[in-house]
């Protein structure tokens, strides 16, 4: 496999000088896409083979549905009238939880990063809460909130909160002090320094926190829905297990993966729109 790809590369490399650079660039992209598609195909092929032969070597494939069964279940899933509700409920929980987390964590991080007193007051309790996994919060969340919906959003929000908070604090603390000094000598007051220097200076690091936070939000919405949901993609996955609809488990897993990937990509895209100056840095 490997040797074959290598040989192919050599043939193309020798032909390359005759192509204009733009075409060569396009060819490079195509080749990478082909390699990626091939890798997915090989992976699915191995999975199919393992399920068909009911391989039982460390992992037991006897009860793992084959890709063909999953594909069939996926078609049924897409056609089901309940699907939009499952998707919408999960997306809504993630968006609300994520939004609340961002609205809390960014101002909090800016304050903790700028003030030693605030760091001493707030950071220690937050550091104690941080290692507690989202799942461990579920019983307490159920007790704290009257509606299941609220406790699920709370769990989601907790997951995104810490990555965003830490990203913001790190961004503020890594800010070049000379930029703050320069702003002070140019007549900026405390609020202007926050708005014009600290926030944009920390923004790249905040965006990293948001991307990671979006990922953890998806982990936790699924966890929360498995315990106390009626709709939602996490609930769908768990329900498929209890009702022994095994191909649906994998459909649910893949949908979670896709939604997580998609939402992270959206956050990343937003981030690059908000930090246009970084595009020029990387191209230099």
């Amino acid at each position, binding site marked *: 496999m490997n040797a074959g790809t290598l040989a192919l590369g050599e043939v193309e490399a020798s032909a390359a000088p005759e192509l204009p650079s733009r075409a060569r660039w396009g060819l490079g992209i195509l080749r990478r896409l082909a390699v990626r598609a091939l890798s997915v195909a090989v992976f699915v092929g191995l999975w199919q083979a393992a399920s068909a032969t009911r391989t039982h070597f460390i992992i037991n494939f006897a009860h793992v549905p084959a890709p063909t069964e999953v594909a069939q279940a996926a078609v049924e899933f897409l056609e089901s009238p309940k699907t939009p509700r499952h998707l919408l409920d999960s997306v809504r929980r993630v968006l609300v939880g994520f939004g609340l987390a961002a609205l809390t964590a960014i101002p909090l991080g800016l304050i903790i990063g700028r003030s030693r007193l605030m760091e001493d007051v707030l950071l220690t309790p937050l550091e104690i809460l941080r290692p507690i996994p989202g799942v461990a919060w579920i019983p307490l969340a159920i007790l704290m909130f009257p509606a299941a919906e609220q406790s699920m959003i709370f769990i989601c929000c907790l997951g995104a909160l810490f990555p965003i908070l830490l990203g913001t604090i790190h961004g503020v603390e890594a800010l070049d002090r000379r930029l703050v000094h*320069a702003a002070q000598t*140019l007549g900026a007051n405390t609020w202007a320094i926050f708005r014009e220097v600290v926030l944009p200076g920390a923004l790249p690091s905040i965006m990293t926190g948001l991307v990671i936070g979006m990922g953890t939000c998806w982990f936790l919405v699924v966890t929360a829905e498995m315990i106390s949901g009626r709709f939602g993609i996490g609930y769908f996955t768990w329900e498929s297990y209890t009702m022994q609809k095994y191909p649906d488990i994998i459909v649910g897993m893949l949908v979670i993966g896709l939604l997580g990937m998609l939402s992270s990509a959206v956050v990343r895209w937003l981030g690059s729109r908000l930090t246009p100056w970084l595009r020029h840095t990387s191209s230099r």
Partner: protein
Amino acid sequence: MSAVAQPSVTLRQGRISLRHLSVAFTARRRPLVAVENVSLEVEPGEFVALLGPSGCGKTTVLNAVAGFVPPSAGEVVIDGERVVAPSRRCGVVFQQNSAFPWMNALDNVAFGPRMQGLVNAREIAARYLAQVGLKGFEEAYPAMLSGGMRQRVGIARALASRAPILLMDEPFGALDAMTRGLLQEQLLELWEREQKTVLFVTHDVDEAIFLAGRVVVMGVRPGHIREEFSVPLPRPRRHVLRHSPAYARIHAAISAVIREESLKSFEEEPHGH
């Protein structure tokens, strides 16, 4: 030269007085005296260079004047007022990369006027950018500019805030010799036009003599003023000046003192930790 036009700041402003200034830091839990008992008077409109080997505390003196570090003893007084915090009286140009990366060149320069609430901040900024030769680069982010251009943005930004005092911390130290020479000449032209007080930190003897009317040589361990030299070379100064005999004499005198101080810090290095 027509560069000597109407001064934009009255010459009453921009007097710097250092009175028995000492600055101490805590480094690795031990107190470290960076600057001890420095007294210096800088007249409004004067161009003074602080020259010395690395570790002589010249940047610390500058930071104390700017209000970035508090004195541990003595005081800094600007125009009769004691310095306790950074203020608009001093524009600062740092060694490198202190332009706001998220603002284009124009917005960087407009920052000061904007913070002062001037409605024509962008016009002012465009004028200062043009003065440092960056017309046409208004929209460029700092990352897109060369090191020399970035320093010119920094200078334009400091000038645009109309501070009577300009503090410069080795602003050309990271540039190649060619760019450095050109920017030194440009700085002198701007200074002759704007009539600001300039306190210029450098470790380059040539740079100090070429730019300053007075060179204050600092010594090490702890940082102190070793000797002052007045530079009676005619203004406006241009690059050819560096080949004159008067220049050579001052250069030799200052270099001798600097060499002594550099050797001292070099020899003491192993004990100094």
